[in-house]
């Protein structure tokens, strides 16, 4: 097991203390951590899921655009941040494990160091929750 870069370690430590949902990917786009608040949003704790490769996590929880169409992995803010090295922001829906959809705003920014990109961090802000049929709960 190779040592994580210090910047990812510090990011994880910060995220662990936040009540705002937050995701962390490494420089290869592997999802290496999300915090408890994100676990509540997704319906699954990170400790239950573990690290997830870039081909998987993008589709595990959606995401969907406002018309309910899946958003391509390459267009997600977190992917833009880690690939292109600049911040990105988007509104979209995600699906938690209980089938509910959540509308979120997501802001992602790259973790750049003297040694180049080490990954990216994304903060999610839930703006609405809908039931499994796409309707807002009564």
């Amino acid at each position, binding site marked *: 097991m190779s*040592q994580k870069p210090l910047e990812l*370690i510090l990011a994880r430590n910060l995220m*662990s203390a936040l009540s705002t949902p937050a995701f962390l990917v490494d420089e290869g786009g592997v999802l290496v951590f999300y915090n408890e608040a994100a676990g509540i949003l997704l319906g699954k704790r990170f400790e239950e899921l573990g690290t997830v490769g870039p081909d998987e996590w993008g589709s595990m929880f959606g995401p969907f655009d406002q018309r309910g169409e899946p958003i391509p992995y390459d267009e997600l803010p977190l992917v833009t941040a880690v690939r292109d090295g600049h911040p990105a922001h988007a509104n979209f829906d995600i699906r938690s494990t209980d089938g509910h959809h959540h509308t979120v705003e997501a802001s992602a920014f790259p973790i750049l160091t003297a040694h180049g990109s080490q990954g990216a961090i994304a903060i999610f802000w839930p703006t609405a929750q809908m039931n499994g049929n796409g309707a807002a709960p009564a």
Partner: protein
Amino acid sequence: MKVKLWGTRGSIPAPGPETIRYGGNTSCVGVTLSDGSLLALDAGSGIRNLGLALGGEPARLHILLTHLHLDHIQGLVFFAPAFRPQTELVIWGPASPEASLRDRIARYISAPLSPVEVRELPCDVSFRHCPETEWEIGPARIRAASVAHRGPTLGYRIDDGDSSLTYIPDHEPALGADLDQLEEDWISGFELARDTSLLIHDGQYSDAEYPDHLGWGHSATSHALAFARRTAARRTVLFHHDPLHSDAFLDQLEATAQEGWAGLGGVGKAVAIGAEGDEFELPADLRRPLATPVPAPAPSPAATA
């Protein structure tokens, strides 16, 4: 490999009758490699005495700086070999996006803080950013890695033959983290210290003092012990003592640390408070029983996924 502590204090020199046994000089450790090459780890005020002890030797010397806080560089302008034309001095340190290592050190070795400028040093001095990958000095393999402290800060590991020394004098790996529960690859400095023969580690605060210094970049005693336990360091020396800590206080802290180490499954005198003048010979000391390896906590499902 021989190791000698020339300065064990953190923050600011603390000379006086109350610190005479553990010493008042700031961070500096001398390392003599198996071929006789000499390294100095940090250049706090302790490096002044190291320089005086060298006499006219050696002609070539490497100084490995963990970071550029004053207590780690303040001895540079009082280091006698730097003022001898026959000395070749290689100073290693962390890179920074802001300025080169030379320019950052020159802020200290320049007016009005210093009577001499870097360009006026009579020795042959060069400045090198530590590479991300391992490099060699004489028979030793050197590794540097960023560690949790304020500002760009490195820890070092020196492997020479079968022995290894890990030096992380300023380190707060437990900031926002539970060292007993974290997977090892998420612990700052872990790879530097894994199975090391001798770990010289930050132990600036007692557990009672730490809450008032959260985020200052230093460890409480229990954090240093937890780090040593997780990394399976064979011997641990607590270092970078707070300037307010008297000899009597550090005696008590050592007793507490050894009690804590025993509670973690350690044995013997494998944990000690570093004192100025302490010397360690590696690997000769390793023949003695120092510590019983303590298994790490079972990894979470996330660590094995």
